[in-house]
């Protein structure tokens, strides 16, 4: 499937889906205060839901029109490397998850080393020694600079200090 052809249509559907979710959550809200007031805590969320439904609907209509008009001949597919995107995202998720239990110092070191390796350009040789040194220096200097100099207690994790 050509993403560009259906991008506007998909976007419209996503807007409608979010509008439905937001609207449903608004109806479930427990609101105290004056019961007969027109404007309570639900007022703005309802207005936003309606706006999103209208915008989503319009976007779907325009999306269908755009995909029908899509010029296949002039289409140049974008070169996107989603494999790297997924790998780096997974790495970030693991990094954040381990930040507190293991501590800032070691997780950051490991994260930097792995991220350098994942992102290094295809044609170039990976300089692992350089990666290790940068990861070590960056994480250590950030950890101690923030903890001792700038009063920001980064998670210490398994470290005793």
């Amino acid at each position: 499937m050509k993403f560009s052809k259906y991008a506007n249509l998909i976007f419209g559907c996503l807007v409608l889906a979010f509008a439905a979710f937001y609207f449903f959550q608004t109806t479930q809200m427990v609101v105290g205060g004056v019961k007969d007031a027109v404007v309570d805590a639900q007022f703005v969320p309802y207005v936003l839901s309606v706006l999103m439904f209208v915008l989503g609907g319009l976007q779907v209509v325009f999306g269908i029109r755009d995909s029908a008009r899509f010029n296949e001949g002039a289409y140049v597919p974008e070169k996107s490397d989603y494999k790297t995107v997924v790998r780096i995202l997974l790495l970030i998720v693991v990094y954040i998850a381990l930040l507190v239990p293991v501590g800032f110092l070691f997780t950051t070191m490991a994260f930097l080393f792995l991220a350098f390796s994942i992102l290094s350009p295809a044609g170039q040789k990976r300089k692992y020694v350089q990666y290790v040194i940068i990861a070590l220096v960056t994480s250590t200097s950030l950890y101690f600079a923030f903890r001792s100099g700038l009063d920001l207690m980064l998670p210490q994790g398994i470290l005793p200090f």
Partner: protein
Amino acid sequence: MEHVIQALGSVFAIQTLLFIFIGVAVGILFGAVPGLTAVMAVALFLPVTYGMSPGVGISILIALYIGATSGGLISAILLKIPGTPSSVATCFDGHPMMEKGEGPKALGVGIVFSFVGTILSILALMLVAPNLAKVAIKFGPHEYFAIAIFSLTLIAALSGKSMIKGIFAGVLGIAFGTVGIAPVDAAVRFTFGTNELKGGFNTLTVLVGLFAISEVIKTAEKIKSASKDEVAQVSMKSIKGFGFSWKEFREQLPNCGLSSLLGVCIGILPGIGAATSNIVAYTVSKKRSKRGHLYGTGVIDGIVASESANNAGIGGALIPLMTLGIPGDAVTAILLGGFMLHGIQPGPLLFTNNATLVYTIFIAMIVSSVAMLILEFYGLRIFSQLLNVPKHLLLPIILVLCVVGAFGINSRVFDVWTILVFGLVGYLFVKFKAPHAPFIMGFILGPMAETNLRRGLMFSEGKFSGFLTNPISGTFLVLALASIVWSAASHYRNSRRDQEMLVVEDEE
């Protein structure tokens, strides 16, 4: 006068001066390296300021802002690609000048007029802000509601090609702003039973996610196949002065004045800033100039227009921020977060309750501009070499700095997850070609509009008419309506024109 002396003392302390110079240097680097932006520079350095006094902390942030706005010109001329969107129009003439062997002159002109633009905008800020604050101090909820609504409609209207996407981005921003405890009646909204969401999303996490994390993810997409950028080397040693004559400087003053004025005015408008003003100033200057036909072939006029306008946006964007607490663009939105972290609420009261800080900001801005002039001119060699820092080493470090900044806000990992979530939202925006700016403005102005709507209704006994009968709020609401109608009409005209062009192409 007492405040001015105190402010001078605070800025001219050795430590503050040093921080300002470092701030400007780092800012220039962020402006110069394509992919790094002023928003990132300010966001990443916020945690460094946590432990400092408000005056010093905010001076550094201002220094970063000024450096980063100007730094884009270095890559616009040397790399032939703009370092930030603020310098797009600088390429139009900077690139041909470079090819003609006039690179040093192009850089000299860019640097000097960046400086002049900044100084003119600081003067505008110093002149307008205190007077506007005197008026704004009388504003109540009706006025604030109307101004917030007007700003929101303006952003949606001015953003990008698709009006629907622009408005949706704004609406989604407001929707995210409704998370947490509601104004006035303190109802709990969209927290899904978690305690962390009760306080809502922190503005800084939203901004860091949208502007920094999404950039990291976006770059990961292309980094494997990226080629090294060619950095042209120039030597500033052989040139006299700034590389152009006094006569040329005087000739460019009207152009610079007009472009700076445009920069200030566009900077004041919420949601758009230097990224728009450099192109508008270039176009206006080209139309007005007798040498208009030469623009784009490598004349200094184009660089003057673009560089004075983008830097003039700084003073412009700070006017609504300081007087009303409304940010003019994404960088000032981060600055707003920075003010809040230091316990300062920007708004008209700032000028009476915190006058020393106001003067500290003004003086820090002037010192930063001078630092920018010196550093860009004498440190060009170093900056041009740093343009080659490999992205695959830079981006993970930036990500770590984002994590440090997010964690530092409340010392909790929840905020770090938040930046990742908003990073993904920002990445989806990039993929679907939806603009970021309306989202962030909606996120900040939405809660402001809602709070003031409800307070205003309490004042006018539940009647909406109070918003229309108040002269200032009435005027802004009418302007808001006019801006919707105007932009809908112009979008309709544009799409009709596009359709007609398609039909003509088909017939051919």
